[in-house]
């Protein structure tokens, strides 16, 4: 199959027909597929929920499943399903709550796009705006958010399939590798250069910290990217930016002000000092405020680069999603925040 357009991947008839073929191929029998529900989240991967039932050698199976598709013309295309799938499979029993994964492919053969299918996990995704948590729920979710991150960063990835993602990253070059990665992304997308962005990039290059160790870094670890049921986190989601790097990177990212509007609580859930203390006691990694600050700056810079990417994507007509230009209109606000954040260096 040729690469599919976003319109095709939004066409439920097309997706259903492809799903039918994929399930037949992987289960060895004709599957019954219930209604497809598209979740209206994210700017890149498309997400469908569906029920499927089929006969297997061990009897009838019925599953609630999630299909994720990386559209060839999406914001960060080209996408790869393999890093997410490999990571989710590897960390499954490590103390990080993740959905069980079933099948994946980066070939366009099945859907015209990279895809993977995983188990649907119960719960809803709390967001940073307007949640009315009780103190007990807030505290429980905050602690589990810290615990799950600690479990991820403790995970011994060497000797697992994740090792194939290492790309030569070391404690010395982890920060510089990420700065280079996001600079390349910006260069590929920018419609014009802005002096403030160049100035921030210069600051990042001059302040790269060494990493205390190389861990699996989620890349988008925050409120909004986990499911919770009551006081319990049931799954950490959205692994599309997963890579190996400095564990401070995830801490700096989740500490972004964007994820705690109007509150000092990290991700609106936990005090920074409590996060650091709990994380340190679970990982043995001493949290460096300077490194966290560096990764907060890098994180905010990533937001800027993502805006630049959104601008390019919309300008080229690859997406008509109006959330993209709406989002990138705020880029100057990010540059202003970057200037202030750099001035707050510890």
């Amino acid at each position, binding site marked *: 199959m040729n690469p599919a357009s976003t319109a095709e991947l939004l066409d439920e008839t097309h997706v259903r027909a492809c799903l039918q073929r994929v399930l037949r191929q992987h289960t060895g029998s004709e599957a019954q597929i219930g209604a497809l529900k598209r979740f209206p*989240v*994210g700017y890149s991967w498309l997400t469908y*929920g569906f029920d499927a039932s089929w006969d297997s050698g061990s009897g009838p199976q019925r599953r609630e499943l999630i299909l994720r598709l990386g559209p060839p013309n999406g914001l960060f295309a080209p996408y790869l399903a393999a890093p997410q799938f490999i990571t989710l499979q590897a960390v499954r029993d490590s103390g990080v709550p993740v959905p069980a994964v079933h099948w994946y492919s980066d070939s366009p053969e099945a859907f015209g796009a990279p895809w993977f299918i995983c188990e649907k996990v119960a719960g809803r995704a709390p967001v940073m*705006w307007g949640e009315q948590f009780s103190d007990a729920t807030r505290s429980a979710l905050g602690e589990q958010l810290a615990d799950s991150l600690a479990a991820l960063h403790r995970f011994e990835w060497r000797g697992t399939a994740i090792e194939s993602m290492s790309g030569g990253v070391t404690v010395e070059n982890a920060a510089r590798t990420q700065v280079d990665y996001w600079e390349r992304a910006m260069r590929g997308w920018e419609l014009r250069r802005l*002096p403030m962005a160049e100035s921030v990039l210069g600051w990042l290059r001059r302040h790269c910290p060494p990493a205390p160790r190389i861990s699996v870094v989620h890349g988008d670890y925050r409120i909004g990217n986990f499911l919770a049921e009551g006081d319990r986190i049931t799954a950490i*989601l959205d692994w599309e930016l997963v890579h190996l790097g400095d564990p401070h990177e995830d801490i700096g990212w989740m500490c972004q002000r964007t994820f705690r509007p109007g509150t000092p609580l990290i991700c609106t859930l936990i005090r920074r000092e409590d996060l650091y203390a709990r994380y340190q006691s679970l990982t043995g990694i001493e949290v460096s405020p300077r490194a966290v600050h560096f990764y907060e700056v890098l994180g905010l810079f990533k937001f800027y680069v993502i805006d630049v990417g959104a601008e390019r994507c919309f300008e080229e007509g690859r997406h008509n999603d109006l959330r993209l230009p*709406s989002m990138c209109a705020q880029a100057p606000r990010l540059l202003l925040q970057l200037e202030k954040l750099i001035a707050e260096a510890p």
Partner: protein
Amino acid sequence: MNNSLDRLFSGIIASLHSEIIPRLDDEFARGQAYATIDLLNNLRPRLDWAVGPLAAQIAAQLVAARRIDELAQGVPNGPPALPPALAAMPDPAAGETLRWRRDQLDEHLCKVVDWQNQPPAGVSETALAAIAAVTAQYMQEQVRREVSLLPKPLFGEIAGNTGTAKPAAKN
């Protein structure tokens, strides 16, 4: 179109807010509608009528009016003459021309920042600091000027949290 741009923007936004969004049940469609409002709010302080079609219209008016003036020479009680204040084509300061010039100047200043980021050997700290102070002031003013045009973002509403108890379901 004879309505003012400002009225058109405010009317479209009001209609989306009060007539369209309350009738949308689909969360994704509501997000798109809020993003539309956000974009209109962003465009509102930046847009003016396109210069090109207006200039063409004015040129055509001037051709007609000048021709009428010629034909009216010596005609008693002829038609009113073209007032001298209206006789010249206004300076066509097209938005695109200005944007191109702005981008060129920013690229020039980016090259100055590149130079600051990796100063060549032998550049004195004093000279570097003096130039960096100028670019820093420019950058601060630039982003503040841009931010002054930005409305409050509607990220929460666009993401589906509209205060109407619609849960953000995902997996």
